[in-house]
């Protein structure tokens, strides 16, 4: 296949576009991995996501929490 006298420009366009798309894909994938790891870490420490009623420390919290929550 002959891309003519401007093959450099054509190939550069495709190469740069591929790089940018790959960077986007990498961002999405790495971000997801890191978030899943953090979620896993937090979950393994016994932190739950749903309301405070399920947390084991909640009973104590209600009676002793004098600090203000930001």
């Amino acid at each position: 296949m002959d891309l003519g006298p401007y093959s450099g420009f054509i190939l550069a366009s495709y190469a740069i576009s591929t790089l940018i798309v790959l960077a986007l894909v990498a961002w999405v994938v790495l971000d997801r991995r890191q978030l899943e790891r953090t979620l896993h870490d937090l979950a393994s420490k016994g932190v739950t996501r749903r309301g405070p009623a399920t947390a084991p420390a909640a009973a104590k919290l209600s009676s002793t929490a004098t600090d203000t929550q930001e």
Partner: protein
Amino acid sequence: MLKLLAENIAIDRGGRRVFSGLSFDLDAGHALIVTGQNGIGKSSLLRTLAGLVPPTEGTLRLQGGETERSPAEHAHYFGHQSAVKPALTALENLEFWRDFLQPARPQAFSGFPVATDAALEMLGIGHTARLPAAYLSAGQTRRLALARLFVCPRPIWLMDEPTSALDTASEALLLTLMQDHLTHGGMILTATHTPLALRPSRTLHLEAADPADMPSADGEPDSLEEIYG
């Protein structure tokens, strides 16, 4: 022997004489509790001792300290501001101060550095170590700021209202830790409204001689009543 000497200190803030003729000395292992009504100059006194406000008159010396270092460089200042960066985790905040502050361990002082994790655990915020400090409550941020005093040993603690934003349990803990610091030959100067049962301690009560004489740039020094506790 470590001994902090203040001789004939006068402080001006914004052209106004806050106080003058203040002299006291403090031995290692002792606490000085500064009391007095609002605006009398308790915070100014602590900031002067911290080297943040130069005294207009008088001298501050530390006997038995490390040579070529000012008294302020032997001191921790625990003021109203926490110096905590919300974007960093609690541990990152603490590790920075551990590495950045130069520790001061003169002979008479036997304080030792506490590991960062242990310091956070000791203050009851070990579970927040890897969380960004933005997630911490006011009381937790305060305790994180307090942890700084343990990871970098320095003999003098300058504490401005140390118990503010702390609950009763944390207050009791803080008192124990302060007492422990005295036991190791440290010294504490604290401005407070709540009575702190530190032993051995002395009270320095700042009081205006006469309200009319308050802006006494050249007149009588304000009377200073020292009550030995």
